[in-house]
């Protein structure tokens, strides 16, 4: 795996461990040091409430990753189910589901998530729902196309000729064959979702104060760009480093299994 990504990843893991060992408090305020530059008490300086930026970054990482992982799990679960059903049964069912997949694809980027988050009161659960609404389609599409390829294989036909039921074939043949491409796609989509989550929080639709989140920190830091530019830069670099790491993991998995994914990034 990419060495730089590995080092960044170790650093984040180290920081998270340190946070739990020393029990850092992300809401501890020091009013004498509002918007201070990096110093020996707060390694990355303090924000507009005098809270340590480093501590809040680590807490923001945990919040963001938690939400993104749950959203990924939900959207992959439902997306794969829907995709497999469409691809396997074909015909009318497929046409119907494919129309829906296309419909959801016709909302660009995170627009659907923004729309959904806007109408729900902001909060963690609703944020997960919003990410899920925008996220399941990619999985459904991939699962559908992979199932279409897989179901014409000879071993599937053989299994059916020996009396294998639909459920049996789906469980024993189709699902295992989907594992690798979906895992790679899933890793990349986690990176996308982290940016999406940060974007929603940036717009004020995600995690609410006082809980730490990278998007909200970015929004706050932009207000103090003139006074303390380091705030915005640290938050931005954190997001980029994490996204970079996850993409590197995706690349690694991709190379490891050496598969040709026909995923086109939108």
């Amino acid at each position: 795996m990419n060495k730089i990504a590995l080092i960044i990843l170790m650093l984040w893991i180290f920081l998270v461990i340190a946070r739990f060992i020393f029990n850092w408090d992300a809401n501890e305020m020091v009013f004498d040091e509002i918007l201070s530059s990096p110093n020996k008490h707060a390694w990355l300086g303090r924000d507009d409430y005098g809270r340590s930026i480093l501590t809040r970054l680590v807490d923001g990482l945990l919040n963001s990753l938690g939400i993104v992982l749950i959203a990924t799990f939900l959207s992959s679960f439902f997306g794969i189910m829907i995709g497999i059903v469409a691809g396997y049964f074909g015909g009318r069912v497929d046409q119907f589901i494919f129309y829906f997949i296309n419909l959801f694809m016709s909302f660009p980027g995170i627009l659907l998530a923004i729309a959904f988050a806007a109408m729900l009161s902001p909060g963690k659960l609703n944020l997960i729902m919003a990410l899920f609404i925008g996220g399941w389609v990619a999985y459904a599409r991939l699962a559908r196309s992979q199932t279409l390829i897989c179901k014409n294989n000879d071993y599937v036909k053989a299994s059916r000729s020996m009396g294998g039921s639909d459920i049996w074939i789906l469980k024993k043949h189709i699902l295992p064959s989907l594992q690798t491409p979906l895992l790679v796609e899933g890793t990349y989509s986690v990176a996308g979702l982290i940016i999406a989550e940060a974007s929603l929080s940036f717009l004020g639709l995600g995690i609410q104060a006082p809980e730490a989140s990278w998007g909200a920190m970015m929004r706050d830091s932009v207000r103090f760009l003139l006074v303390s530019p380091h705030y915005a830069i640290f938050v931005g670099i954190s997001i980029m480093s994490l996204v970079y790491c996850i993409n590197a993991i995706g690349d690694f998995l991709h190379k490891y299994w050496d598969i040709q994914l026909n995923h086109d990034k939108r």
Partner: protein
Amino acid sequence: MKNKFVIDFIYLIFQILGIFVISFILLHLVPGDPVLVMLGESSSVADRVALKQLLGLDQPLYTQLLQSLFGIFQGNFGTSIFNQQPVKVLIQEAIKNTYILAISSLLITLSVGLTAGFMAAKYQGKWLDKTITNLSLLFISIPHFFLGPLLILLFSIFLGWLPISGMQGIYSIILPALTLALGLLAVTIKMTRNCMVELMNSDVVRTARAKGLSEWKVLIHHVFRLVLIPIITLLGMQFGSLLSGAVITETIFSWNGIGKLLVESIQTRDYPVTQSCILLIATSYVCINFFTELLYQWVDPRVRLNK
């Protein structure tokens, strides 16, 4: 060919209808009472009922849906709850600004991206190629909401060349357009370079070289024209990401476009405006995809003739 066009067009109309229904249902079926959110917890019951009637929210869902649909056919997008203006007026102004922004960044992407990709492919493996490739890798991984502040820091605060935000004068478009463009630019550079490198080893180029054309003529006449085909598709597909990226970029730079209008309407709980903005962005997206497909068929005879 004509047949396929008609089918595609009918499908497009169905897609837009579907977008309308989905955005309508999403916004109306979510739990929670919008009237309560708009007026606040302490509002009186009479006020709530009055507002509900005013918005037509007391009627069954399908009636609301049909009314809203017929309204749109007549060019009536409803009235903004927040400042009582017709939504149509608000949106017309905003969409104009957004398109100015989007087209400027598309122009930046096309001009810079094609040139950089071209140079990278021409000097393949040299330092210029490596610099361009690495820079575009860096740009692709910066999210809009970080790139915007970064550019403001560099060009407005440290160098003082450009205005921080707002819409005064022609120079204020540069930073938002650049923010919006850089991600797309990186993809364009990468794709131009890879396509050209691939084409330079193809039969077309070998023949052209063999008949004695100069290196530049080969590149411009044969390679570059073929590269344009995938680039058009890419840009058409990516226009949607430009539109959704505009939401963040416009918020950062206070650019009075559809994205900023959307975010503001969300903050003020201005239902009709939110719905119209979402409908408009998604509709533009599918329409642009449709026209990209047409353009693609027009540019690439192979697609036209095979069908």
